[in-house]
């Protein structure tokens, strides 16, 4: 038996117990915490049972019940219930036996007694603890914590980490991304596994003997069952060892590692160009809505959104490389001039999207009350826009930028093909004709991982910078 007075003692050590209480509400955490503290539980449970036996709760319960029975209250309840049952039976015109009514009434009376006694005892501070509550109580006990710290070290580490709402958010978000990435890898592998094509036939030609094909499949592990192939692919992805490609016997991880930075460089530069152009354009459009400037900008933005990037690339090559001869037509890593056209082409649609997004987001913010207040205070327009409006308008824009960055990495394959850049996108396209399963898998999954990391980073940045999200997190 534990009385509630213990809760009021101020010097109690409640850190672990509050965190534990918070986490136990969510089922996955409950399970996880139980698993981590599994070594402690037999011991605690033993104590719990022992204390329960010497518990006065049962005695008090019996005493109180006795009191109710002796004062004839139970008999009275039973009579009332019986009357109710008879009234019910007559109303529905059912023929019910007297004994049946009596037994129902007795049951109901007993239940009421139980509830009544429980309530009374709780008022007096006597309650029966469940094992979970008991365990939680023990966490306030310093001696208990010290004793169980070593056997359940993971349990306490989790509690310490999750005590901070930021840390909890970050860990949850990382875990979520990890699950998504594993899902992506599994999905892409499954799609390629289901392929009706036979890489061995495609590579070795029609004249290949059955022995050659069997040999090829054995070397690349294609004769193994689905699950073991999947396990090999997943572990290969996370240990950066994807083996050799089907054609050419090159080390896939090495090829990807040399091609990925090229794509990433162009993508990041495109993104920077897009931000540098689109955000001022969007703001100007929003500040002077429905003006000629606004119409022109938004019309150009819509054209930028509608233009197919490969066609834009061809037109650029035609005008700037072939006719005007300003830039080289194909990419060359040692000539920065050759970078300009791919960057512009890759960045066009994202520039258009960001400009449109900035405009609508700014328009929404500009009509908020606090902007009117700022204007009413006599702040000039430039300050209102730069200090008050842009900051709040930026939040949805950054999310959109994160999402668009993913689309840009995906769309890079087309641009790379047009400008003959040997990046990851054109690598995937080149490999798909065989189909070279590990190479395609590696390319797609590493791009997906990059996108997930960028979005993860943006989400975490929000948690730090957006006061609304911060306060919401603290409240929960």
């Amino acid at each position, binding site marked *: 038996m534990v009385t509630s007075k213990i809760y009021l003692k101020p010097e109690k050590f409640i850190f672990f117990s509050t965190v534990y209480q918070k986490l136990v509400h969510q089922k996955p955490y409950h399970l996880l915490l139980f698993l981590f503290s599994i070594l402690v539980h037999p011991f605690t449970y033993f104590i719990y049972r022992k204390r329960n036996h010497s518990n006065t709760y049962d005695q008090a319960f019996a005493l109180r019940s006795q009191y109710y029975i002796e004062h004839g209250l139970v008999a009275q309840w039973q009579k009332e219930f019986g009357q109710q049952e008879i009234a019910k039976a007559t109303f529905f015109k059912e023929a019910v036996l007297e004994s049946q009514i009596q037994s129902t009434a007795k049951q109901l009376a007993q239940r009421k007694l139980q509830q009544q006694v429980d309530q009374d005892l709780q008022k007096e501070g006597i309650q029966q603890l469940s094992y979970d509550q008991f365990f939680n109580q023990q966490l306030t006990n310093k001696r208990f914590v010290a004793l169980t710290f070593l056997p359940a070290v993971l349990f306490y580490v989790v509690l310490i980490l999750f005590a901070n709402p930021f840390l909890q958010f970050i860990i949850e978000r990382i875990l979520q991304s990890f699950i998504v990435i594993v899902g*992506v890898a599994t999905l892409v592998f499954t799609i390629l596994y289901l392929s009706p*094509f036979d890489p061995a036939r495609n590579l070795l030609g029609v004249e290949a003997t059955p022995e050659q094909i069997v040999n090829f499949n054995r070397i690349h592990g294609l004769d193994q069952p689905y699950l073991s192939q999947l396990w090999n692919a997943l572990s290969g992805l996370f240990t950066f060892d994807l083996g050799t490609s089907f054609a050419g016997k090159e080390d896939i991880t090495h090829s990807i590692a040399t091609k990925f930075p090229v794509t990433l460089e162009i993508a990041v530069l495109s993104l920077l160009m897009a931000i540098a152009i689109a955000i001022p354009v969007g703001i100007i459009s929003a500040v002077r809505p429905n003006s000629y400037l606004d119409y022109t900008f938004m019309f150009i933005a819509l054209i930028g959104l509608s233009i197919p990037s490969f066609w834009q690339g*061809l*037109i650029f090559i*035609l005008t700037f490389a072939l006719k005007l001869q300003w830039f080289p037509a194909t990419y060359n890593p040692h000539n920065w001039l050759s970078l300009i056209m791919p960057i512009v082409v890759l960045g066009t649609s994202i520039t258009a999207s960001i400009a449109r997004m900035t405009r609508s987001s700014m328009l929404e913010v500009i009509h908020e009350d606090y902007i009117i207040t700022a204007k009413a205070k006599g702040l000039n327009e430039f300050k209102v826009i730069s200090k008050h409006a842009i900051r709040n308008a930026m939040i949805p824009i950054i999310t959109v930028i994160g999402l668009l960055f993913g689309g840009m990495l995906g769309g890079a*394959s*087309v641009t790379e093909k047009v400008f003959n850049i040997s990046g990851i996108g054109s690598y995937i*396209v080149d490999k798909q004709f065989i189909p070279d399963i590990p190479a395609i898998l590696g390319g797609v999954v590493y791009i997906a991982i990059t*996108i997930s990391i960028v979005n993860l980073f943006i989400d975490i940045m929000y948690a730090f910078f957006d006061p609304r999200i911060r306060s919401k997190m603290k409240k929960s």
Partner: protein
Amino acid sequence: MKNILHVKLLLKITQEYVNSHFTFVFSLLFSLLFLAYSYNFSSNSWRPVVLLFFIIYAITTAYVAFVNLRIKKDLAKYGDIQKSTRMFGYPLLITILSGNIFSTSFAFMLVSKRKTAEYTFAAYAFITQLFILGIAALNLFKPYVTDTFLLAMGVFLVLSLLYIVMAILCTKYVTATEAPKWMLIPGIVLLLATFTGNLFATLLGYSLIQKARKANPSSIEKWQKIWEKILRNTMAVFGLFFIIFMFSLSVTSSWTFDYDFATENNYGALLQTPTLEYPLGTDNYGRDLFSRIVFGAQISLIVGFFSTIIPAVIGGALGAFSGYYGKSTDNIIMRSLDILYAIPGILLAIAIIAAFGANTVNLIIALSVGAIPTYARTMRANVMQLANYEFVESARALGASDAAIIFKHIVPNSLAPMIVKATLTIGGAVISTSSLSFLGLGIEPHIPEWGNILKVGSTYLETHSYVAIFPGLCIMLLVLSFNFLGDGLRDALDPKTN
């Protein structure tokens, strides 16, 4: 001061004035484009045909500027456009022969004071039909035409006459709320004209029949209001026009265009520059580029349509269940869709095509799978919002099953954002289709498709650049049209502005 403000506001809300401004700007832009292209810098000579176009467009521009000033004066003086000014619209109707859609539609707008949605439909149906007639007439310069050519041209001619008559009848007899009973007959005829793909005729027929039958007045009003809002947005109307034009062209092209010109090799006419027989020149196998582009519209529209409707239905259903049931249903569906969402659409499409091969069906499937999560998210957000409304609660109280509540009450009310989303993503699907074809991963190379034509064009970029320019222009225009229409639909259907 007050008067000036009044006039300014009047100018802003008068559709004709805004439209004349718009027409002026675009006619000017086009005449400048023609002027720039009329002089051949490399050979220092003029291109007479282009120069002629420049002159026609420049005259149109000047005329529109004059009308614009007159409208402004009328509004300032009388607060209304005078009848004499409206008369100036009739000569402007002739510009349809120069293909200036902006000035033609402005002329139609100017000549009629009473502009019901039906009048606009009839006018655009007429313009569309005339354009199709003109495009099909280019086949007359070919050595031979299809067997159905004359019949189809005759039908087109009769239909365009019907549309212009309908436009006149609409101004006379149709009001915003009702139409005379005998309008049922032309309404049914117009619905039959749907088989030529002219959807303006369908819209006109449908709304005429509704009004003539004196159906539910609230639904007529709703229909009328939505279309008024869409038609008020000039760019959205042009978008709709171009889409319907392309659609109608691809429906009727098999009657007036010979498929052989687009697919059969003709080694006597390799890489010809544009002439009247080959309006856009020929490609490296001597195939007529113009016919190829016309037939390419079919594929683009089919793939665009299916790769939008399939994910919209699947994603919409998943999103609806997820939003309605919440809790673990929501968690399971949305978390698994997160996996799909993490892969960029085009990469997923490449992976699927790599696995199952490049053909039209696989392309549609590949593009559809990647688009499911966005639709599911849109639908889920709508459903979550709607599920808390009273009408859902009352339906539940009346004992409606979950399926009935979702499909009868929630889904119809959350369709508007889905329609907008779908319109905006068809454009993306068209771009993806041609991009994948360009990479050799889309439509089979022998089928005339815009991406395939561009792929050929990219190899002859230096010597025969027109092979690459025209199909790209078509893609861009089609996508631009879908984007404009989508923006217009969003403005019209957005409950926030209602």
